[in-house]
């Protein structure tokens, strides 16, 4: 099997209610998969389970050979291989408010992956240039527009070079022009051999830029 991400019969219960039940999907390298459905059907929950931010109750998640099983979230020390493989872009971006754009991108490189400052800075500059936000490197997160903040968040998630990129509602704060620019960026990332799983309720965007659309049934 050549899938980078494989989710098998994923089940998440919360307060005695099934938030997700029997979700199975695969995403291969170079592929963009859109996870569709109205609000509350568990799109974000699925992404959070893959990023090990959330415990799940049934099924199995495998990312490039690293498996997560039902039960409590393992301690971070056991999740290092997963962190290396998976990047997550939050809907509200969650940029570190106390750091400027450049430091948001370099912080994990320097402190988690032990890169020298110059090397981390070079990586950040390259990513910010690719994403067209290099001129904002010294800005504070709240000085950024929605589109800029999103591109910085993508740069931050890509800095450790993960092969799987998860994105939660990436078009929520974008105008139409920005939406297609984002679509082009994602296609570009997939073209580099990355796998992308995108939770969205934007059907038009999903149809235009993903390889496959998976719609979660309501309830």
């Amino acid at each position, binding site marked *: 099997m050549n899938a980078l991400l494989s989710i098998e019969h994923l089940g998440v219960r919360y307060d005695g209610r099934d938030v997700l039940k029997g979700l199975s999907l695969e995403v291969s390298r170079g592929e963009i998969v859109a996870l569709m459905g109205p609000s509350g059907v568990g799109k974000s929950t699925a992404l959070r389970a893959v990023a090990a931010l959330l415990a799940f109750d049934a099924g199995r998640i495998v990312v490039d050979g690293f498996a997560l099983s039902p039960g409590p979230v393992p301690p*971070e020390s056991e999740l290092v291989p997963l962190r290396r493989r998976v990047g997550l872009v939050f809907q509200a971006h969650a940029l570190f408010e106390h750091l400027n754009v450049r430091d948001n991108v370099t912080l994990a490189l320097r*402190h*988690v992956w032990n890169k020298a400052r110059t090397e981390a800075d070079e990586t950040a500059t390259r990513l910010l240039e690719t994403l067209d936000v290099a001129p904002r490197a010294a800005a504070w997160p709240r000085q950024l527009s929605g589109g800029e903040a999103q591109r910085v968040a993508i740069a931050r998630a890509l800095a450790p070079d993960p092969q799987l990129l998860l994105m939660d509602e990436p078009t929520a704060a974008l105008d139409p022009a920005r939406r297609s620019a984002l679509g082009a960026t994602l296609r570009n990332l997939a073209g580099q051999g990355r796998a992308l799983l995108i939770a969205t309720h934007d059907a038009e965007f999903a149809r235009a830029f993903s390889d496959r659309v998976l719609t979660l049934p309501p309830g």
Partner: protein
Amino acid sequence: MIAASFLLLALAAQGAGADSSTLIWGGDAEGGAPFVEADPANPSRVRGFDVEVAERIARGLRRRSARFVQVQWSSIDQSVERGDFAIGMSGVEDTPARRAQHAVTLPYFEFREVLAVRPQDQGRIQSLADLRGRRVATLGATIAYDLLLAQRDSVGLIPVSYDDDVHPYTDLLSGRVDAVLLDHIIAQRALRRLGGAAFVILPRAAAVGHYVGVLARANATLRDSVDAALREAMRDGSLEQIFRRWEIWDESQGALFERVLRGTVTTQAARAPAAAVVAYLPSLARAAAVTLAVSFLSMALAVIAGLTLASARVYGPGWVRAAATVYVEVVRGTPLLLQLFVIYYGLAGVVRLPAFLAAVLALGLNYAAYEAEIYRGALQAVARAQLEAARTLGFSELQILRLIRGPQALRYALAPMTNDFVALLKDSALVSVITVVELTKQTAIFATNVGSWVIPGILCAIVYLAMSLPLARLARRLERHWGLGGHAA
């Protein structure tokens, strides 16, 4: 409410001495025997030689009785000027400043300032000159304290000021101080209380002083009548009888009476107020330095202990959280004054902390409880998404605290921390109860000695403001600096 108002009115009427057939006099029963103390047989009454002197004066003034009003010893002068009572007594010393500011009676008792030392030091210490580098205790705002201050500069001894005359002697025995300089009748009473051989009173007096009555400046006429009554009591032997009854009569009293009756008692002239202010400036500067040192060290301790407590409450397992919560609640729920006493005097049996260290510990550990609550709130105010973003990037819990959560929480904590520091700066005045002379205490001593709170009070306020305003400014600048990052461009 109405009842309380009536009570206040009644008290005010009493205080003003509405009944002219009663002589109302003020003193401090906390000073104890032989001056004024609660009567063991009837604690609602007072007894002591000053009580009997007041009664004798009342008789001399043809008043029916004398009524006692309790007042803190260091506030007698201010109270008498306010009209709380007609005459203040109970070991009130004859000083130039007092004579300059108030109507002061004739001296009616002569005391000697005597040194008390531990028995084993008797051979080595004969006078103040032998106390270079040693700690010498006394009551603050007294002739004895002024004497020690003068000797600090000439001999190099270290004056230690107390608010009461009991703890200097217990601290002498425990080794916290090396000598006590106080009035001979106070020393003799302490010696009797501690069993008669606990310390030695050196025979040579370091100075001689007199007890007087103090009246409001505007009350000079009454003062003259009191003087007449005192002379009469000296002549007819009734004053001698009182002193003999309280076992404080000696030949120097006879000599004093003789001088008084011959009219040859001389009193020192007061220093001009301007000179007094200048003379106190170095002491004020030193006291301000003590306030700053106590405050900064306490705050440093409070921040470190507060961070530890807050981390324990946010990250710790159940029992650690419970222990931290108990600490915070107990410390916040009990008076700082009590904590100071417990750490300095209460722990003395286990560990004898120097006063400065005890002050820093008590203030620091007290404020740690408040800091802990600020930090806990600030840590919890950091958005969950920030922490989750950090986790997906692979940071460990400790790195998240150090690199993301901590720095963000610091911004939320900065304003309340600045408030706390300014409050601590002022709360540090409390440590004077364990003999640390800081700014407020020094100001009180200054005020007592010059007989007015106006100039010392203004000076003191200026120094406090000079210490706290820059901090508030710095905090505002930091907030503005960080705030810039918080607004859309």
